């Protein structure tokens, strides 16, 4: 990895360059909650100033730019007694600026599912390869537990990664694309002084994590506690609304529906992101439901996050952003659920 120092004015210039002919997605303030907290989301920006890199968190993750909630997988043109299938992938370039380490890591995890393996998804790959990613370091949030999930440090999956050193950024360059882009603005070599400051900032960040969960033995624990009362306790609260999976940067399960135009000229296969907490997630024809109750479905979400994915990829699927914990009206959040599992006797 190459490192450079980028002045803040030069960063501004860089963003303007990208903006000139690409769609740019960045954290944008869209209002405030009733309690005064600002609300930020990853949204298209048209000017540098619309971006607010000092955002706390976004309710929605940036996964939507890779796995949209609704996506047409293919179109069938129906005519006479026959049909033709059409498949299209998105290919317009796009840049996302301001992703946090855990969000970049979330993409790395999605890559494993959608860009590798036996059936790589061309829909995902076309988006991923056409997206330029600028990550940025941040001071951990109160309730974030990304460190426990090993997602607070990012080594790949981005093009540029910034660390704020006050008046300048320390930049990690991870692609040739990013390298040539950076050559459009002025950058400086990293000096000893810069390295020193960088290390201090990084230390401050690393030591700043307030929420930790014990993830070490989690896969094993989940197996042991399969019938634990903990699932009853939290399952009873779950509204089966699916909000957690919608905001999660790594939840990717989906359903497919077919839609036909009223004149029968066209049928579409539409993919819709779904959630394993939803009632009919595991229902099959004839009405048998493998997971009829809240409790079992909630358990399986945790099971997939912290054990299932582990078996497949040697790492948990969760990156510890706690978006799901924040969005859940019932207050179900991983740190609390996992803590309960450790302390089983309720």
């Amino acid at each position, binding site marked *: 990895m190459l490192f450079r120092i980028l002045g803040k004015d030069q960063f501004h210039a860089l963003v303007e360059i990208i903006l000139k002919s690409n769609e740019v997605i960045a954290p944008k303030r*869209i*209002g405030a*909650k*009733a*309690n005064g907290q600002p*609300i930020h*989301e990853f949204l298209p920006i048209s000017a540098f100033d619309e971006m607010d890199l000092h955002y706390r968190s976004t*309710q*929605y993750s940036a996964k*939507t730019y890779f796995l949209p*909630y*609704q996506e047409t997988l293919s179109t069938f043109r*129906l*005519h*006479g*007694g*026959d*049909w033709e299938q059409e498949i299209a992938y998105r290919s317009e370039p796009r840049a996302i600026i301001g992703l946090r380490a855990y969000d970049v890591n979330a993409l790395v995890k999605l890559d494993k599912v959608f860009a590798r393996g036996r059936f790589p998804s061309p829909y995902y790959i076309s988006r991923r390869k056409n997206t330029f990613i600028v990550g940025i370091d941040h001071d951990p949030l109160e309730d974030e537990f990304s460190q426990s999930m090993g997602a607070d440090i990012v080594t790949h999956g981005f093009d540029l990664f910034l660390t704020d050193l006050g008046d300048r950024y320390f930049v990690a360059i991870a692609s040739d694309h990013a390298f040539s882009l950076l050559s459009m603005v002025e950058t400086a070599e990293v000096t000893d002084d810069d390295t020193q400051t960088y290390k201090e900032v990084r230390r401050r960040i690393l030591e700043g994590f307030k929420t930790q969960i014990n993830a070490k033995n989690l896969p094993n624990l989940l197996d042991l506690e399969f019938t634990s009362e903990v699932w009853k306790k939290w399952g*009873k*609260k*779950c*509204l*089966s*609304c*699916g*909000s957690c999976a*919608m*905001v999660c940067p790594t939840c990717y399960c989906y359903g497919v*529906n*077919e839609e*036909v*135009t*009223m*004149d*029968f000229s066209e049928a579409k296969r539409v993919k*819709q*992101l779904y*959630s394993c907490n*939803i*009632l*009919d997630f595991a*229902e099959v024809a004839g009405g048998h439901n493998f997971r009829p109750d*809240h409790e079992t479905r909630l358990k399986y979400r945790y099971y997939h996050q912290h054990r299932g994915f582990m078996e497949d990829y040697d790492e948990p699927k969760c990156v510890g952003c706690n978006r799901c914990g924040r*969005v859940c*009206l*019932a*207050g179900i959040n991983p740190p609390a659920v996992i803590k309960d599992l450790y302390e089983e006797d309720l």
Partner: protein
Amino acid sequence: MDHLRIEKKLPRVAVFDFTGCEGCELQLANKEETLGAFLSAIDVVHFREVSSAEGDDYDVALVDGAISRPDEVERLKAIRQQAKVLVAMGSCACFGGVNRLKNAYDLQEANREVYGDCPKETMPTQAVKHFVAVDLEVPGCPVNKDEIERVVQHLVWDLPLCTFAYPVCLQCKQRFTVCRFDMGELCLGPITRAGCNAPCPAGGLGCWGCRGPAKNPNYQEFFALVKEKGFTERELHDRLGFFGGFEDLL
């Protein structure tokens, strides 16, 4: 469905309105992009609001509005006799809708208040299913035209009809809406059946539950969290009672 060699049918559809605002019928004339195709896919034999043609040989009856006068009961029963499939369209037909709110008041007094010495015939407002068997319920105030299209396709060609096994929250999230609870407002989204595509929260109004209960809703937790967030019994009660879908809870 030519490609399946399945013969295409042109169903005879009739639309009937009872006590209500006719907003649901208006939706039938909406969704302009597909209006022509929609009308070509069916044979409208009776639809008083838009057509003076009157036929009584229909297969599918779309009924909107609630029932609130004895003559309506008679009319409804006749329709049921004729129709192979009777669809209750909209919250009024499905649950009685807002018109049901009058049932909380003394009808004689209400009559006196509005009509003075010339009282009009009326009776407690009820849902369609209260009087005749309903084959399919499409709730919503008003109904969603997309869903009506799906219903017609389902009835005619057996195309899949999504039954929405999730509450409004999911569709709300899929539109990137900020949760109304975060804005300090009450919202019935978590217990209300999805399918409307959550226009209310997106437009800045917590859900009022016009589509009635979601499948297997978690009332207990929902009521607990509403209370915890500082909303009063009365506020919750006002909402649950508004469109009639949650009547069983009250």
